[in-house]
């Protein structure tokens, strides 16, 4: 273990620079964040991830955000274990009817101010699963959606841009 730790000390960090954000989207989102929310949140967001029916592809890429290359926590964004500690619900997957109640209860358990981010095509409109008897379509059918991050699945860069946009918007509003 010593050798590995020593190498980590002498090698350059693998962590990459933050991606550039889209100014238009940022301004639009910032306009929707109220002053009270900004004051409470500062430059930090706690995220609860909820899978409402995903194929687990989105989960893999959300996991990647925590690896040393993307290192999400350096931006003040971190994943929490309970909706009661969360500012943001990051929801993946189509809205499986078997998950509707659990998603709604998770939303209710999240204290305000709170945002819901729909991650991936399925969460936006049901994706390839739209039209099934067991799927209601996108997650907007159960909870209000504030931001969408497209992709199937979105790459970690796309996820990072989406989350940083939300963070900037709350800080700037």
């Amino acid at each position, binding site marked *: 273990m010593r050798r590995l730790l020593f190498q980590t000390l002498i090698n350059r960090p693998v962590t990459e620079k933050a991606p550039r954000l889209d100014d238009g989207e940022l301004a639009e989102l910032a306009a929707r964040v109220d002053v009270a929310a900004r004051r409470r949140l500062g430059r930090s967001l706690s995220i609860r991830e909820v899978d*409402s029916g995903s194929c687990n592809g989105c989960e893999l890429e959300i996991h990647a955000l925590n*690896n040393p290359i993307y290192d999400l926590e350096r931006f003040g964004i971190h994943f929490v274990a309970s909706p009661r500690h969360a500012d943001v619900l990051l929801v993946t997957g189509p809205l499986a009817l078997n998950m509707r109640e659990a998603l709604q209860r998770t939303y209710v358990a999240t204290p305000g101010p709170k945002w819901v981010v729909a991650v991936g095509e399925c969460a936006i409109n049901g994706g390839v699963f739209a039209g099934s*008897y067991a799927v209601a379509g996108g997650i907007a059918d159960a909870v209000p959606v504030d931001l969408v991050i497209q992709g199937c699945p979105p790459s970690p860069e796309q996820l990072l841009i989406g989350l940083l946009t939300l963070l900037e918007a709350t800080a700037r509003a």
Partner: protein
Amino acid sequence: MPDSRLIDAVEFAGNRLGEGPLHRAVVDPIAWESLAVTLAGNRNWSLLAQWAEPDTVHMALLDSADQSTAVVSLPCPSRRYPSIGRLHPPAIRLERAIRDLYGLESEHSPDPRPWLDHGAWPQRHPLAAMPTGQASLPPYSFLTAEGHGLHQIAVGPVHAGIIEPGHFRFTANGETVVRLEERLGYVHKGIESLWCDCDLERGARIAGRISGDSTVATSIAFARAVEAALGVVAPPRAQWLRALMGELERIANHLGDIGAICNDASFTLLHAHSGVLRERVLRACRIAFGHRLMMDKVVPGGVSVDVGSDGIEAIRYVIEEITRRFPQLVELYDDTPSLQDRTVGTGVLSAELASQYAAGGFVGRASGRGFDARRATPYAPYDALTFDVPVRTLGDVNERVWIRILEVDQSLGLVRQIVDRLALEQGRELVADVALRRNATVSEGIALVEGFRGDVFAWVRIDDRGRLARCHVRDPSWFQWPLLEAVVEGNIVADFPLCNKSFNCSYSGHDL
């Protein structure tokens, strides 16, 4: 007959799985039940899959004595059939799912509770010929565990980590788990209904999204089943590219799992390092194939993308990087007693259960079941490649970590061989035209493909217009989830995450 052979017992049984259209053996209830008796008593036989359509149940059987397979069908006009699960417990959840979706009852089933149906769909038996209106279901009754000092811990469906939803009901005595019961089905998406009368391209896109972590393996299984039904063979270059993607998927997932298991023992250093290696693999996949998880790159008839010289270079580079750095991580794992203290002797799966449930992948191979579809029921191009199938016998979390470590080594070797062979491959053709070979009649095909998690089974029926009429895909998780319940018993609650991660079953692949 405990020693009978499948090829003697079932019509059309044979050991050329997935080559050419499928012939099913249509049997009567008496023959169906006698097969269940043999399945329960003969250690060589295992249940590969059990599925249904509105008026018929099917099961796929494997005889490991000669690796022969057979698909047996029982028409059930009375909407009832003799339960396989009554004699062979691995079928119980499959039969509960069949009842929920198709309304076909397994007679004398030991567990008549619903499984996928949580009472949230607009209809009951949504895939039956005549679905009925949804009546509210009674609350789900969990199995009981009674005794002095027992308490229950209910977890999920929304979990604490970034994982898929499912409910776990623990009954514990202090720290020790007396019983774990899983309640799954939360991410049921009605996938089999989407496959009814669907074009092949859309069918393949759905197959690639049954379980995102196994998108390549599932897509290959689906494509091979379609090709078998239509009598088409994918071009050689496509076969190499499929295997290349399949092995990269295996390496990426095993690296992620090894790190995640150590992370669940709070050993984050290994998680960080293996996370970096996993990321490198996914980036090489994006350069080579245009998608980090390689979704939609395997299509019926072949592949949808060729790999360029920059892709080959990226793959060679990442393979050499892992070859250089992975041994250090393995050494770190092996030299850290505090970590081994958590993984050795934890969550032991017996060889008997692994064999009975035909547990695939690292779950089976860590408990002495050496089945690997790439070797046992070989398919192109693995019959032309050199690799070992590592098998260990102690069946604990540590063994499941070690199987992954050894398989990463094997897959690195496979990727090297495939990249070398690709350079020699003269043919540039990527996809055989499945549309041109359209049969005038309805035809069916099956395939068994080794994903990172185990063998994925696929069955398709193609109609006379070349469209997908029906399809069933059985993820390896179906036979691994019940075993997780068994291995957790007697462990402490805090070791459940380790046991669970070492199994890493798919929720979505199971719930469909």
